[in-house]
């Protein structure tokens, strides 16, 4: 039996652009990288990874650049991250404004649960993946 959703590894076009985006907006930290010159599996798979941590686990999200294949947005609709506290929520909104991002207030899926004291907004990363942030 599984206990929880642990991490997500998704495709991006530009590893450094995406790493900078998540660091600037959410303060995520680079926890490791995998490269065809450092990893046998990456060499065989022709891809490269940047692991990003929320600050407790080694990685929570991981960015992947495949050197031959093109990714699309036809299998992932969205994913949600929980914001640590209200100060962090305000700081992220401030960062989003500074970065010129457009945001959609509210939950991504209309049928998703939403309690009165929760706050949520959604935005797209540099690769048009939709991300939802929620403060519970």
């Amino acid at each position, binding site marked *: 039996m599984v*206990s929880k*959703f*642990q991490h997500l590894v998704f495709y991006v076009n530009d590893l450094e652009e995406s790493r900078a985006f998540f660091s600037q907006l959410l303060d995520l930290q680079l926890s490791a990288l995998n490269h065809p010159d450092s990893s*046998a599996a990456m060499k065989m798979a022709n891809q490269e990874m940047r692991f990003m941590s929320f600050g407790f686990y080694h990685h929570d999200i991981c960015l992947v650049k495949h050197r031959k*294949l093109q990714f699309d947005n*036809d299998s992932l609709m969205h994913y949600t991250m929980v914001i*640590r506290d209200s100060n962090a929520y305000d700081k992220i909104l401030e960062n989003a404004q500074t970065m010129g991002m457009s945001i959609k207030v509210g939950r991504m*899926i*209309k049928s998703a649960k939403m309690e009165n004291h929760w706050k949520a907004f959604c935005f797209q990363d540099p690769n048009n993946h939709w991300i939802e942030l929620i403060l519970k």
Partner: protein
Amino acid sequence: MTQIKRDANYIPPNVLPRTLQLISPVLKNKWVRNLILLPSTLSGKRFSNKTADYGVFQPSRVSHLDQLSIYVKDIATSRKWYEAIAGMTHSRTCEAEAHPYRAGFTIKCCYMNAKAHDECLVLVELRNEQGEIITPSAMSFHHFALEIDGNQFQDVVNFATAARKKGFVSSYGVVTHNDIPPNGDGETGGNTAVYFYDPDYHLIEFCGTMDTIENYKERRAVQ
């Protein structure tokens, strides 16, 4: 947004060929890994990617992942798969609703629970303006990971054994993503993992023992 029609027999280009799946356990042998990386070693390009090279000490503005929504061809088939292999439970399936960002498209959502994480996975049937189901590409994400209850090495081994007895075929693992024999595959994160493709070729990692700041600090103190 472009929409590509995929037939029922569609296999995403990132799916590992079965031959490679079968020989992948050789990555647990460090001499095989060294052989694969020999060109990088000889050219002087080889470098370390070990977890210990990148200390993570500060909490970010995010505490954890909450929900993941993925497109599936058929909710009933996918629900049955996640219930059977992962022991996930059905929370609710909603009526069709407008897609949040694709004009004219509709979605039907099936919310699935893990033992300690309610509605963490949403299985989504996507229909176009004509009401046709869109076959997912499996080309947006590489994989996602569900943590196995217990979170220990043996829990992952037991999970993999039970899954195989039920007829599920793993694509990789059980391995541990470090360089410690006999199960280390030379990768990073410290997580013990076994991987399976779901009915839509989404790659799912079932994992435990992920490295944390605390055990990183302990190892660093020992070094």
